[in-house]
């Protein structure tokens, strides 16, 4: 993603530059006319913070589709974070284009994969995609027993850092709180399925 690449470059420059200010932030002390320097761009984690009521953070996606990709400064301009949601309707298309990629790891697999959650309409589609990607069977979700009958269970890390079973919460809520996915297997999976 273009915006992401620009961020990487800026960050590297900043590391070697002598200036007042904290490492990792872009606040430089410059006089004269200057465009907004690269201050902290919201990390994927903070994306969730900005969206109240479980809606994706419009500002993050705006940046990735803006004509001149400008790095965004946390908390600037000073408007209330939940207010961003009221500007939603116009941004719906932009969000759809940007996608929502999360990492998927599986125990025992040598490397991780990434999937775009926004291409799926709901849990069944997502689970089928995971099954295809990792060549395994996850089976059907039940509220009481999780993914009984399968030796695998899909879990995700939510914005509080907790690992949750995929399928418990409404799809929209899952989309807004899922940071990464992990497919666990074996005894761990069985433990989850027992309604603990």
């Amino acid at each position, binding site marked *: 993603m273009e915006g992401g690449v620009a961020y990487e470059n800026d960050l590297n420059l900043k590391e070697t530059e002598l200036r*007042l*200010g*904290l490492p*990792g*932030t872009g*606040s430089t*002390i*410059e*006089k*004269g*006319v*200057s*465009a*907004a320097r690269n*201050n902290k761009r919201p990390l994927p984690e*903070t994306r969730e*913070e*900005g969206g*109240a*009521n*479980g809606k994706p953070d419009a*500002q993050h996606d*705006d*940046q990735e589709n*803006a*004509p*001149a990709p*400008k790095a*965004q*400064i*946390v*908390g*600037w*301009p*000073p*408007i*209330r*974070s*939940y*207010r961003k949601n*009221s*500007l939603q*309707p*116009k941004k719906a298309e932009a969000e759809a284009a940007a996608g929502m990629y999360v990492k998927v790891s599986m125990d025992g697999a040598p490397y991780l994969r990434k999937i775009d959650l926004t291409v799926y309409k709901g849990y069944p589609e997502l689970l089928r995609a995971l099954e295809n990607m990792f060549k395994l069977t996850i089976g059907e979700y039940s509220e009481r027993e999780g993914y009984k009958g399968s030796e695998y269970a899909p879990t995700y890390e939510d914005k509080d850092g907790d690992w949750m079973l995929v399928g418990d919460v409404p799809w929209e809520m899952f989309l807004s709180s899922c940071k990464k996915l992990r497919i666990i297997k074996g005894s761990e999976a069985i433990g989850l399925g027992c309604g603990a």
Partner: protein
Amino acid sequence: MLRKASSFPEEMLEHVLSFITSDKDRNAVSLVCKSWYEIERWCRKRIFVGNCYAVRPEMVIRRFPELRSVELKGKPHFADFDLVPDGWGGCVYPWIAALATAYPLLEEIKLKRMVVSDESLEVIAKSFKNFKVLVLSSCEGFSTDGLAAVAANCRNLRGLDLRESEVDDPSGQWLSRFPDSFTSLASLNISCLGAEVSFSALERLVGRCPDLKTLRLNHAVPLDKLANLLRGAPQLVELGTGAYSAELQPDVFSNLAGAFSGCKELRSLSGFWNVFPGYLPAVYPVCSGLTSLNLRDANIQGADLIKLVSQCRSLQRLWVLDYIEDIGLEALAACCKDLTELRVFPSDPYGAEPNVSLTERGLVSVSEGCPKLQSVLYFCRQMTNAALVTIAKNSPRMTCFRLCIIEPRAPDYQTLQPLDLGFGAIVENYKDLRRLSLSGLLTDRVFEYIGTYAKKLEMLSVAFAGDSDLGLHHVLSGCEKLCKLEIRDCPFGDNALLANAAKLETMRSLWMSSCSVSFRACKLLGQKMPRLNVEVIDERGPPDLRPENCPVEKLYIYRTIAGPRFDMPGFVWTMNGDSV
């Protein structure tokens, strides 16, 4: 004729004091002498605690045994802009638990930027038999379960206001928990709720509360049902509509227009989410009486917007998106001569290019046409010193001036100079200025002007400004009434802070983030000033693992008689002499 205070009958003094309600006046009374202090504290009914960590609840309870109304504020203002990490603090529960035991007759609780749990709401609901007003402004941490407890138990509730709060998993059923016998509601603000509320419960509630004057709905209340609600409450003074997005249906429209015509007392309107312009004429019948119009959630543009605003000749307060543009503000200036407060919000704050034609000229027009203007919040993308000087001269009554030029460090776009002179004119002319927010390219000069002229300034917000510690020094040494100072991304460091340490005890709080204050200076300040809490907020980990002269990420300093707090999360360190 001299008279000893003790010879003045207590009952008479109490009676006189009952007319003195302002906190500042009450505080002044209590300082006259010991007996006045005693008399005053026994009859104080309302208390405002601007920083919940400045004092412990037991201290308030010990001094004021007869309170009926408590107002508390928690997180610093910059929490509104995601600058205060989650979990920082501001939990209200310890206060609620203490108040519940001490004041069974408590009637009002007003909280701002605090973390309120459902448990706290349940305690409120069950502890105060005569509870009347609950205001949760920009709060979080509670769900509709807590609201249900309030609805079910507070028999005499008059006001429930959730303005700008974040409510978890909202479900509309909590409204049904108000018993059928409950009729005392005068004010309800649920505009922040995301989910649908039970409309039938809402309708019955509105219909059976004859004193209901304020009703702010959330966006989920559909347009075609609004008319029914209005007919059930023609006495409404303040209304926030729900979403307006349905396509134009003539019968719905005429029903709505008829309902609005019946609301002869309506003075304040808000809401209008996703409003379909065709429906706007339905509110025209009430426009001439409106004193307050809040369109910040409405995407009305162009002629529709101007037409609506031009009908509101009695308007005193207008909140609007920058869709109004310069041309709309000209019309506003021509029509609304009583305007005292204007807020213009950005419709596309993160866009690289301007999407609307809103410039400094709009604000100049309003300052020229509206002589009573006293409060401004204006987001724009360009400004000049000349415009600021004009605005400064036109509006002598200004008490709150907040200008946000969206691009940080943007200069005067015509001269490319810093905006020091413009803001200098602002502080020099606005003799009663209490609140100021700066933006644009600014050197230490502007702070010199502020320190020299802004003698009544109580709150100052600064971002991306200044050259050196001298800037901060000017403000701290010059602004005698300074109460709250919040600074981000400015090159202010140790010297000004340490040189003005004593000043900090005369202020409520100081916030500095992304500045150049070293950990060493923070420790020193914490050691020197026992009546300040110096809190270092740093998500990189313990500050003592880095060199002492390394700047801290964020710093929050506030005066307190409560000592250091014990509910700090892992990323906050207090710089008290013993714990450092």
